[in-house]
């Protein structure tokens, strides 16, 4: 058993800390995907982007000694993969879902290939801010060691909400997503808007990947992401393309994903794998509850192929 002074409180505490720690990649990928999907295109390749981001962040952090350069490199890698996705999708008669699947395989393959020499060395990690200084209980302090990236992600969500609602760029993205004809009639290139939206989406997803390798779990290996990218894409759908809902959904997911390790820490080891699958089961369950065959989802961009 864990520290007797707090007993079974370890579990909710670990879930809470885990929610913050584990949710960060979900948060970044879902916010990025939110931008891309609002512009009328779906990028299923963010799973590959996440892994490539994790690999490049770890590599650059190791080579340069600066984890923040690693984060930047991850973002740039993600943006390049986004540009590749948008570039192929802008060809006539090319299906964005299929391109996403291709880039998912390509991204993970490339990351494993280039990341081979990075499994051994240790790269500098991202620092954490200690919000638990007031407490004497080690579990509380551990739960409250919060990474700056998480705070940035939390800040981006309302910013994005506001930007979609009020800024010119937000309006353009939404127009492209609701009716490409309308955007064209306004004299804008839909392909260009979607290219930019996909690149920004890739940038954020890459940063989400850097969190995986540079903070939690904090190393590079080939099992680093198993489906977090695709879960985050699904998350956008039931967050109704709303950045603020993406934030709450990510936190819920982080908590679900932290359940397995938390239970293990108090000695519950049976069903470990099943608890690890909790985020996927939760995603599926929420999709079953919220989707309906009768109507398209409220808030769905009309141009989005996947909801039609």
């Amino acid at each position: 058993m864990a520290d007797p002074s707090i007993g079974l409180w370890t579990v909710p505490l670990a879930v809470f800390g885990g929610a913050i720690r584990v949710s960060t990649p979900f948060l970044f990928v879902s916010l990025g995907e939110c931008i891309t999907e609002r512009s009328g295109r779906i990028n299923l390749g963010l799973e590959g982007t996440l892994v490539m981001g994790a690999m490049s962040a770890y590599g650059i952090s190791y080579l340069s000694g600066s984890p923040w350069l690693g984060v930047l490199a991850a973002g740039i890698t993600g943006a390049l993969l986004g540009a590749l996705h948008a570039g192929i999708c802008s060809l006539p008669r090319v299906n964005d879902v299929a391109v996403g699947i291709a880039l998912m395989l390509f991204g993970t393959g490339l990351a494993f290939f280039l990341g081979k020499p990075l499994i051994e060395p240790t790269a500098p990690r991202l620092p954490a801010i200690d919000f638990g200084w007031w407490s004497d209980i080690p579990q509380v302090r551990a739960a409250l060691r919060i990474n700056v990236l998480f705070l940035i992600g939390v800040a981006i969500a309302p910013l994005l909400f506001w930007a979609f609602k009020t800024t010119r760029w937000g309006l353009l993205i939404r127009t492209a997503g609701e009716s490409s004809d309308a955007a064209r009639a306004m004299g804008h290139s839909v392909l260009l808007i979607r290219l930019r939206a996909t690149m920004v989406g890739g940038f954020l997803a890459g940063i989400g990947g850097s969190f995986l390798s540079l903070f939690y779990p904090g190393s590079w290996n080939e099992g680093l992401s198993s489906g977090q990218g695709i879960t985050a894409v699904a998350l956008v759908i039931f967050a109704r393309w709303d950045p603020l809902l993406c934030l709450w959904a990510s936190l819920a997911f982080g908590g679900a994903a932290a359940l397995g390790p938390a239970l293990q820490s108090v000695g519950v080891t049976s069903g470990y794998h099943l608890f690890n699958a909790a985020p996927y089961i939760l995603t599926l369950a929420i999709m079953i509850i919220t989707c309906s065959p009768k109507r398209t989802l409220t808030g769905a961009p009309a141009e989005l192929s996947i909801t039609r």
Partner: protein
Amino acid sequence: MTTDAAEGGVEAAGVAPAADVGFLQRYGASIEYILIPAAALIGALAVFGLFVAMYGKNPLDLYFYMYYGAFGTWFSWQNTLTRAAPLILTALCTALPAQLGMVIIGGEGALLIGALSATAAALAMQGAAPIVVQIAMVIAGVIGGGLWITLSGALRQYRGVNETISSLLLVYIGLAILNHLVEGAMRDPASLNKPSTREIGAANMIGTIPGTDVHWGLVFGLVAAIASYILIYHTTFGFAARVAGGNIRAAKIVGLGVGKLILTICFLAGACAGLAGMIEVAAVQGRTNANLAAGYGFTGILVAFLARQNPLAIIPVAILLGGISASGGLLQRRLGLPDASVLVLQGIIFVFVLASDALYGRIGFLKGKS
């Protein structure tokens, strides 16, 4: 995919009125279906060569070893065909639903569940005659995998849940179930380092085709591909499926039971992948463990797309991709390339194949003069 086929049909009908139709006018569309994927493949190989050159290796060595490791000797041919067997089946898992316009990418999950069910059946029937056990394994694998993908189809039909995402989520859930059972209820206590189920028994293995090292799974795959081809292109059921895939509203108006079509096709698709899992257990591994998640399900998606979702074309494409993965070991040993290089090449091929979709109907010389 279906729109391409439809456009090709319209085009062929449009240029066919005169009696003196040229060769290109008559066969241009068919030639396109071979020429464009072939060009995409060559383009992908060229880019991969450049990539490997940047890695400091000679691309010509690369191509030679790839050829040698895949098709150079009888030994490598056997290795290639052994790998092609599950690829044919997992590709069908994507290609069959594609006829209905559905994108299912969860073949890996159905493969794992099929393997698990087949193993459970074999372990439950220890002592029965091998042929009985083998038939039970096939049935269990087919039903396990079939129901797994039917779940995605049913969610799509009755709840409107996107089948691409649900099938992929089910891969991770399937893997978790497999790990849970293999490390728990079904674990062989003797398997210490690599948790596994007990062996199904040497007598119950399905063995190899006489005179080769290639297991009977290849024949399973060939039969499944040919049967799927006949089902899709030469039966009323297949016709109904293609109508529904082309225009779901029209299908409903003429009274086709779309729900039934979706569920049946999804079951057949999952059954194929489940069969692949059964074969991996009964012909290769002899037991179930995490080794089964070797990515055949994901490579199968690529095979299906490269074959343009045509069940017959899947056979040569699966052999080609089986060859690429068979050559991976040689690339690792002779050139010192990481084992992931096969994944990179597969990803590049996939990207090129999809981009090449834009070329259909646009190659000037294939249209002939009109």
